[in-house]
């Protein structure tokens, strides 16, 4: 996974300090609510029915145990002891006090997380396949490209005040596990006839009150041209998207109104101005980022003795057999698998997890799962890279 460097940490801490100052000015009356609202939204803070709600980004759905424990601590110390994992790989805390939000952002910064661009009319958290890097069927790990898009879109000055929020998802599996058809831009990694890997690009998808399935705008986009093409799409949307009606402002409305062919032509015209320009990432920087997502080092493990146990238990324990059928996903390494942990207990809202449950899952991931936890758009958690011999422990 990607790692914060000193620059990242300094930036996130500075941003938290900036928001602390903004909150102090709001409480002191130096900022009106109209002035403060866009500032708090840029830091993921909403005011909802009961209270303030803070949405925290989990980039491409990847957490480590320290981060999950940190989120559990926030749930316990600042909320009602639970958090809500969302369909877009964020976590929300629904009982937040404005006065305590700066302390929460400080704490998030301590374990390399933040709430920047989780609300407001900007490019939101980039989501991906929760099995990325572990799936048996993916062309390559999509998270590196998510990270490239994340860095490009974070604080992008041209796209800070879009007509409406803008969501991007990337999937590289044979099966789309990132709901790319329901995003403003969906990127599916594909191979062309020459065997090169690139992106099939979809636009204009979304859910909400006007659900639309995204349409194909490009059958194959070479990887090295990704950022300029995304920039061209965003420019067309930024200029032509409606701003007079919040319910008509999403890209899905624009694409439908223009028609996919006209929208494609407009993007092509914009792209001609910027393709192969400095917007594209230098090869060395791209390789540096992608290197953080190299396949994990998993040693072969003889599972034969454990497989006998598993087979026997499946025969004798109906619940375990059912759990194996529903919750185990094939891994690219034959001795390993990914384990799904459902956050959909009967009678509970999908995606809710108590602080204690988060800590327990962090313990398990640390001991058995290479210190990784993934958040899924189905609002479950996944621990990838589990040796099959450990399945009876679950």
């Amino acid at each position, binding site marked *: 996974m990607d790692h914060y460097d000193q620059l990242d940490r300094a930036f996130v801490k500075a941003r938290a300090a900036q928001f602390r100052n903004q909150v102090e000015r709001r*409480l002191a009356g130096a900022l009106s609510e109209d002035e403060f609202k866009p500032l708090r939204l840029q830091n993921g803070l909403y005011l909802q029915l*009961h*209270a303030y709600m803070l949405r925290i980004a989990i980039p491409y759905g990847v957490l480590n145990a320290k981060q999950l424990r940190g989120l559990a601590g926030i749930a316990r110390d600042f909320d009602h002891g639970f958090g809500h994992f969302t369909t877009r790989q964020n976590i929300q805390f629904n009982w937040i006090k404005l006065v305590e939000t700066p302390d929460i952002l400080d704490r998030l910064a301590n374990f390399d997380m933040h709430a920047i661009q989780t609300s407001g009319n900007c490019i939101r958290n980039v989501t991906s396949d929760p099995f990325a890097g572990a799936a048996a069927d993916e062309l390559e790990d999509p998270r590196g490209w998510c990270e490239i898009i994340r860095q490009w879109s974070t604080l992008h000055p041209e796209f800070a005040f879009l007509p409406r929020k803008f969501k991007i998802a990337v999937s590289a599996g044979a099966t789309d596990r990132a709901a790319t058809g329901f995003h403003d831009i969906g990127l599916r990694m594909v191979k062309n006839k020459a065997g090169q890997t690139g992106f099939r690009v979809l636009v204009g998808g979304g859910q909400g009150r006007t659900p639309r399935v995204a349409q194909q705008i490009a059958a194959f986009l070479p990887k090295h041209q990704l950022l300029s093409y995304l920039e061209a799409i965003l420019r067309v949307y930024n200029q032509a998207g409606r701003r007079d009606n919040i319910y008509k402002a999403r890209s899905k409305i624009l694409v439908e109104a223009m028609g996919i062919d006209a929208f494609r032509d407009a993007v092509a015209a914009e792209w001609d101005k910027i393709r192969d320009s400095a917007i594209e990432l230098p090869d060395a920087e791209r390789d540096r980022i992608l290197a953080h997502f190299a396949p994990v080092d998993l040693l072969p493990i003889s599972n034969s003795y454990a497989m006998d146990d598993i087979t026997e238990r499946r025969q004798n324990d109906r619940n375990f057999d059912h759990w194996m059928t529903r919750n185990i996903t094939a891994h690219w390494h034959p001795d390993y698998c990914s384990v799904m942990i459902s956050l959909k207990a009967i009678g*509970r809202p999908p995606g809710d997890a108590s602080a204690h449950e988060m800590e327990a899952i962090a313990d398990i991931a640390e001991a058995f799962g290479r210190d990784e936890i993934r958040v899924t758009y189905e609002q479950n958690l996944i621990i990838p890279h589990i040796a099959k011999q*450990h399945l009876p422990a679950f």
Partner: protein
Amino acid sequence: MKHCVKEPDMSKTDDIILTANRLDDGVVLWMTATLDWTTDRAKAAKFDADSAAIATARGEDDAAANRIVSLYAVAVNGKADQSAREVIRAAKGPSVKPPVDRPVRSSIPMSKYFHPVMKRAPYGSLRSA
């Protein structure tokens, strides 16, 4: 900055209640008959056409003074004041049953779950082997 009350769904003859959120913690509030704020929906005052203007002005003053935020009026007509939004706000809590946290974290002794043959965590032991 003028803090305008949103237009409620009402006829001119409807009484209103005024509701808002407390600025510093977001708690839902209702205006009382003494033009103070309460967290108890049952203590919310109904304002008729004559008193509504005074109450609204007081609410706008409190918003301008940064005590409350998101001020709006709700018509007491059996429809607007009984909407899902208002019922949820009055309930002061999730409309669903949230998961219950344990007050003190219990550490899971992971070693007890390791397969008998493995005994230790897989990665460190395998890498050092």
